[in-house]
């Protein structure tokens, strides 16, 4: 009995391109990921391109505090802003901020995480330092930075980074450390791979899945942080809309029965965070079942 016959038993061989497509379909066939990405993209697109019934930055002082109606679907707020227009327009600001903040965190956190993902003395020290840093109330520090350095977008991104970079570093490090013990890394060393090759060709692709899942969570977190910042009145310059700011203004109107000012941006935040969480969960599952 020849052992090559074993090969005959293996059927349906997919060539490279088709396989890649197969993986893509596998990821996108998860309804959770699909719904999540779909809604986020739709919100984003709407935030940028949807023709809005009213200007989101120019209030109409003669139409203040109107309840939802055919003319104003989500009603108007105390200044005469159309809540619908502002809710949609906010997506064009809050979402890119969250995504960019997360991407920048990734760009900084992943290389740093890889750098400290060895067992040496220095990486250990860096991690101890990170422990202390993470012992701080990072949300408060983020708020402090944005408050004190001004409502600039880059500061909001910095705030998102402060919270997320240490998390990415930790995640990458713990995953990579565990992976360093694994046989295939040892095999790579044995094959004479350089450190760079091991990091980039072997470790990085294998932490990509969890990192991606974590990024989605981080984006969800970023949305909340951005909303919280503007809720406190920092991080956004009026009349530019932002969900957090709308919620804060709406909270004041709540007592006089004008629930719509707070409800719609509140739901928008909720929806976005749910979507990011869905994506994260989906990616997590996908990376586990891989």
């Amino acid at each position, binding site marked *: 009995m020849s*052992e090559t016959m*074993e090969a005959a038993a293996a059927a349906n061989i997919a060539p490279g391109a088709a396989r890649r497509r197969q993986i893509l379909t596998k990821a996108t066939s998860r309804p959770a990921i699909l719904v999540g990405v779909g809604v986020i993209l739709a919100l984003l697109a709407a935030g940028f391109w949807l023709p809005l019934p009213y200007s989101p930055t120019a209030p109409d002082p003669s139409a203040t505090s109107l309840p939802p109606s055919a003319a104003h679907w989500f009603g108007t707020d105390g200044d005469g802003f159309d809540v619908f227009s502002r809710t949609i327009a906010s997506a064009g600001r809050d979402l890119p901020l969250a995504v960019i903040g997360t991407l920048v965190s990734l760009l900084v956190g992943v290389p740093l995480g890889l750098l400290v993902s060895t067992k040496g003395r220095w990486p250990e020290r860096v991690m101890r330092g990170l422990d202390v840093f993470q012992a701080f109330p990072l949300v408060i520090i983020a708020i402090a930075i944005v408050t004190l350095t001004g409502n600039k977008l880059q500061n909001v991104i910095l705030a998102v980074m402060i919270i997320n970079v240490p998390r990415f570093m930790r995640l990458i490090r713990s995953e990579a450390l565990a992976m360093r013990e694994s046989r295939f890394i040892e095999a790579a060393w044995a094959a004479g791979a350089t450190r760079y090759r091991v990091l980039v060709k072997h470790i990085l692709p294998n932490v990509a899945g969890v990192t991606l899942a974590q990024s989605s969570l981080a984006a969800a977190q970023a949305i909340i942080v951005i909303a919280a910042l503007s809720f406190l009145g920092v991080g956004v310059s009026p009349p530019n809309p932002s969900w957090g700011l709308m919620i804060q203004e709406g909270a004041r109107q709540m007592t006089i029965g004008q629930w719509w000012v707070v409800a719609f941006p509140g739901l928008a935040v909720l929806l976005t965070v749910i979507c990011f969480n869905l994506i994260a969960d989906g990616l997590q599952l996908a990376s586990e079942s891989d």
Partner: protein
Amino acid sequence: MSLVRVEGLSKAFHRANGEPVHAVNDVSFAIGEGETLALIGESGSGKSTIGRLLLRLIEPDAGTIEIDGQDVRSLGREPLRRMRSTMQVVFQEPYESLNPRMRVGDIIAEPLAIHEPQLSRAERQERVFETMREVGLESSYADRLPRAMSGGQQQRVGIARAIVTRPKLLVLDEPTSSLDLSVQAQILKLLHRLQEQLGMSYLYISHDLSTVNYVAHRVAVLYLGQVREMGPVARVVDDPQDPYTRALLSAYLSPDPQVGRDYEFALRGEIPSPTSLPAGCFLYGRCPIRLDRCAVPPVPLRGIDPGHVVRCVRAPLSEPMPVHEVAR
């Protein structure tokens, strides 16, 4: 001439609390060209550590390693990296030793990419396909991810990766122990054939005597990081001269119910911890035929026949070991 010469190799690991784990203690051996030396011993006896030391994946505490006349320990990082094309390894866990995100073709091509970067894509591909044919994998498998293959196929990929640069030495760390019996036989045959075709030397690591019997020319029996007995397979298995080898052999259960198991050479208790090794003979606490002087160091290896060394002071043992079916 020997391809590999190892002299006085020792290695201790350190636990988090600083306790030393004496994994390998003063081990010496040589492997000739085209020869297979088997290392056998129970779990934790230091087999894998010796394999790693040989490949210099970890640094020894003491001892010399010569491969092909080169003193491996004196090599710097770059020369060592380049030398790795001549010595390769196959691990026990076929799936774990393959990068789950890399396609089989890329996995096999990796050593080529590292050591022969001058090759063109097509040349490299050709070499990969050739190697895949050698290990009995269809070239269509090159596009697969490891998880889409059976354990036997995965192990073939691991072997293909190891031999693609035509190494002179292959360390086989229990290459079949996680495989089923039927698959194990396939892999053993493959290894046998490859050695004949390519003239490689093997350091074959196993805890299972039956496969050693089939694969190896010579065998070294390890206990607590120490060689208990070393010699030609026929000699060591047919007439073991060390109590530990005997115990190991008697633990082997023949699949033939007609072969009895009346000969028992049982050791007492369990293996001592490698953190605090016994002073004299490492087997002293468990040995049924020990003498008082066994507790007193040193207990060196002694040659009792040409090419056959034993550590037991009582060797050659007067009472012969009954011949097992396993020895056939």
